[in-house]
């Protein structure tokens, strides 16, 4: 952990309580083991390949040309914004309000005055990665919506996370050191931190976009987001991850819903070499409901890893999860979800559905649903599927004169559109469609080329 030192954590700014919190987190982190593939929650993942000492906490605050261009694109795609927050490598760099009601607080921890304990209220404890974020997040993005406020337009947070190009950054590649890695200082680790609080009876939509320079470039991104929906509120949250192809993305969303509150989350993982998103949603108040959506598309050799917890701690609560993903090339995916019904959470309704399309011979998907039920009077169901594009669907489209490659494209696009159009933040749908469509077109084009090549080889040999 060469660059992740107590001094480094202590050097980060903020009020005294935040500094104390970082120091404490660092002490805990130092005593904790890093995640290991031997643990069930990290099974099927490449987490053992993560070398923390190859990265260092990034001090960068420069959006750069690529970041600025990306931001412009976001603004163009989401013309109706209530506010736009920009952070670079976890550093808060800009807060723009567009008609956000005066009473709504948005910005850094200063939004809350001297209030302590804004962090860790929803996500208490946590593993070494959460501790890592606790110790090294430079800023906190806070959205604080008081009671009975209705936000008509989404609040958007863009986390631009820089990466370092592979290869030496100080000397050009040369004989004898073609594979030399950039020095640790050049490989940034970012710790975005976000807190969203909705007061009683309020409603709001929040989008978080985690993005970085496209293409290859090493970086570690460990975001932690805490969402709390007070009694009777409605919180809709969508997270889109479009990092470059070499980045590590290990995200954690912890959410809680109070009495009669409705909480909707949607995580979409498209970028990264290893993309993990864990969403824990606690139905904490009687009559609350949570709706979890996840989508991932694996291209190249990506690994997408989605973990969900539908946690029921109160009676008459509902949770509904739908997770859809596709893997192509040699990419892999893991979905592992748990429905937990605690004692006392009678009349729980919980549903969990995971569908996976496997688009290439070299691709693989694992689906692991789990139930942990401590109460009798509950209704829980789970369903999962892993397989190639449905033969009957393809035949049906082909019988209309649509060639197979195009039929497959339509079916897979439709497979994603089925979940994208359920986005809890509807304004994000066009952007999601485009992001998925572009990647899919490239991925399916490659798959089709592979098949054609195999067919040609087969006919040459035959």
């Amino acid at each position, binding site marked *: 952990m060469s660059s992740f030192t107590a001094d480094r954590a202590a050097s980060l700014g903020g009020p005294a309580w935040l500094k104390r919190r970082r120091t404490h987190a660092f002490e805990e982190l130092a005593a904790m083991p890093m995640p290991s593939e031997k643990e069930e929650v990290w099974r099927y993942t490449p987490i053992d390949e993560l070398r923390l000492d190859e990265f260092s906490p990034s001090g960068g605050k420069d959006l750069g040309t690529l970041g600025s261009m990306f931001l412009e694109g976001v603004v163009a795609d989401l013309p109706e914004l209530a506010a736009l927050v920009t952070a670079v490598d976890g550093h808060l760099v800009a807060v723009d309000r567009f008609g956000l009601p005066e009473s709504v607080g948005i910005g850094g921890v200063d939004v809350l005055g001297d209030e302590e304990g804004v962090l860790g209220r929803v996500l208490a404890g946590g593993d070494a990665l959460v501790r890592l974020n606790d110790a090294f997040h430079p800023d906190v993005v806070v959205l604080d919506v008081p009671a009975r406020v209705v936000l008509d337009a989404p609040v958007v947070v863009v986390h631009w996370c820089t990466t370092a190009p592979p290869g030496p950054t100080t000397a050009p590649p040369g004989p004898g050191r073609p594979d030399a890695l950039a020095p640790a200082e050049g490989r940034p680790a970012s710790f975005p931190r976000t807190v969203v609080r909705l007061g009683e009876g309020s409603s709001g939509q929040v989008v978080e976009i985690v993005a970085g320079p496209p293409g290859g470039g090493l970086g570690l991104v460990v975001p932690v987001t805490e969402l709390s929906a007070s009694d009777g509120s409605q919180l809709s949250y969508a997270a889109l991850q479009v990092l470059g192809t070499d980045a590590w993305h290990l995200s954690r969303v912890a959410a809680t819903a109070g009495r009669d509150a409705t909480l909707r989350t949607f995580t979409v993982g498209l970028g990264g070499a290893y993309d993990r998103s864990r969403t824990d949603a606690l139905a904490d108040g009687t009559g609350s409901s949570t709706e979890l959506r996840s989508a991932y598309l694996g291209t190249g050799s990506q690994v997408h890893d989605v973990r969900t917890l539908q946690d029921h701690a109160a009676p008459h609560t509902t949770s509904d999860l739908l997770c859809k993903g596709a893997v192509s090339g040699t990419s892999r995916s893991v979905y592992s979800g748990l429905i937990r019904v605690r004692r006392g959470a009678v009349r729980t309704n919980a549903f969990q559905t995971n569908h996976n399309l496997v688009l290439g011979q070299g691709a693989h998907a694992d689906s692991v649903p789990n139930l942990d039920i401590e109460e009798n009077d509950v209704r829980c169901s789970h369903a999962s599927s892993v397989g190639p594009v449905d033969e009957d669907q393809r035949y*049906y*489209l082909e*019988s*209309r004169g649509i060639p197979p490659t195009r039929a497959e494209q*339509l079916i897979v*696009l439709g497979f994603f559109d089925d979940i994208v*159009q359920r986005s809890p933040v509807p304004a994000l749908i066009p952007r999601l469609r485009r992001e998925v469509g572009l990647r899919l077109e490239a991925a399916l084009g490659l798959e089709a080329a592979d098949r054609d090549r195999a067919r040609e080889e087969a006919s040459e040999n035959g």
Partner: protein
Amino acid sequence: MSLLEVKGLHASAGSREIVRGVDLVVGGGEVHVVMGPNGSGKSTFAHALMGRPGTTVTAGSIQIDGFELVGLPAWRRAQEGLFLALQQPIEVPGVLLEAALAEATRGAGASDVPARLAAEAAAIGFDERFLRRPLNVDLSGGERKRNEVVQLGVLRPKFAVLDEIDSGLDVDAVRTVSQRIERATSEWGLGVVAVTHFHRLLRELRADRVHVMVDGRLVASGGPELAEELERTGYRAYGVEEGGEGAA
């Protein structure tokens, strides 16, 4: 006028031979009806014509205007002017009817697909809201059948194989659907191979020939009166036991 010629067709599903020597010639604008007991091979015959993967033609030929379809994938046969209305149309989540048809007619007047869809839907009482839904998702059995006929009207194939298009439809729907198909025979000279159990399809759809399929073969042919007779007397005259599932 176009010509669909099926000669000596044998086809297997899996390792079993189901279609065992069928000859059938359908001219443009003609309506041919294939009736037969359950399990006689009617659906396999329909899929053999369209080229469903897993249904293998082991002998014989299928030609449209002298062009051989056997050996071609389904999409190529469709492009040659063949259409199959499925007995159980497939749900394709996320793929809008309009998008699929725009793709199917790409380069051949895709721009007027929305207008043609609306007109075809209106002609058979297919709810216009369904046009903006993913293919067959959340549609009832009857609505799915109507959806097939809407697609047929938009795509305007030379020949349509209708696999029990009347099942799942109420009496009124059978009438509007059969009227639409009948009209297509004169409108653009559509040739029809209609597989059915029921004579009621033929009240509005004028059959030129009725064929009886038993055990993978056409064992008898006649005029429309044959359909009426079959509905009255069943297939006992063709060696099929009452209520029997047929030999294949």
